[in-house]
């Protein structure tokens, strides 16, 4: 059954761009702090131990992720059909789930010293690659069109 109602977000022309600003600031904070730890694992940037650094920055990463995960669904709700059918959006959601699961399982284990340090560089590369791909997929949403059937 289709429930017809107006999304209050679509009432104001300003709501979408303002939410986008929160979305951008959120991913900048989250991905920025994640990248600093990944760079540490790769051997450049900050020199505090990767485990301590990850612990120090974790609240900021989480804060950024919360901003993104609150603003994202609200942006989605403005035009669900378009997003749902958009190939780039579909790829982004798969990558996002993978990235979050990877972040809070394998990467976290590594940073707690529960995995071999030999995995430092592969894990850092996978993490950077996943988050960068999400940003790319997010941008491409606006440039991908699925023709009406």
């Amino acid at each position: 059954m289709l429930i017809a109602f107006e999304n209050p977000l679509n009432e104001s022309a300003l709501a979408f761009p303002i939410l986008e600003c929160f979305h951008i600031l959120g991913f900048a904070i989250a991905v920025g702090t994640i990248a600093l730890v990944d760079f540490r694992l790769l051997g450049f940037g900050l020199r505090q131990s990767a485990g301590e650094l990850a612990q120090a920055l974790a609240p900021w990463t989480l804060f950024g992720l919360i901003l993104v995960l609150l603003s994202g669904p609200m942006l989605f709700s403005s035009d669900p059909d378009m997003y749902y059918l958009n190939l780039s959006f579909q790829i982004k959601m798969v990558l996002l789930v993978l990235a979050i699961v990877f972040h809070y399982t394998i990467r976290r284990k590594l940073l707690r010293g529960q995995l071999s340090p030999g995995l430092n560089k592969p894990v850092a590369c996978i993490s950077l690659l996943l988050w960068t791909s999400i940003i790319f997929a997010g941008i491409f949403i606006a440039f991908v069109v699925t023709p009406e059937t």
Partner: protein
Amino acid sequence: MSALELAQWIQGTGWATYLRMSAYIYPAILASHLTGIALFAGTVLVTDLRILGVVMRNQPVSGVVNQLRWPKRIGFLIVATCGFLLASSKAEEYYYNTFFRAKLALLVLVAIHALVFRGSVYNNAAALDQARRMPGKARLAAALSLILWISIACVGRGIGYIEPPLDKLHAALSSIAIVVPR
């Protein structure tokens, strides 16, 4: 040559036209711009929050500032290079764009911020380690830096929301999209 003529000339160059008309390259540069923003934001955020005493308090200010100096420069270089390419591909349109003008004005403020604070705060971090309490000037520098960069990110997003003044533009606009079959 006026600023408008300069903008028209840049937008008319072969590579600027190519960028504007490309289905994949333009969004790829835009995505690189945003990836650069994330990398740069991480370094700015941690540097300024350390000066404000919010994160990594067990690490000396000078260590954090100096170790992040090169990552910060590289991040800025990525953002600025991609930003320049994006701006030049639509230079004439952006000449009229209020948000684009505001962004340029904010970037001038960033330059002024650097002139005022670089010597006494960011290049003087060793002295900040010695201070019993973080000097007011350093706190002010960190707070202003955060406010400036957050404003620039938001104003930058605004650029895309202004309709190009079609009656004034000379170059053809891009309407190319990537078409994905179902």
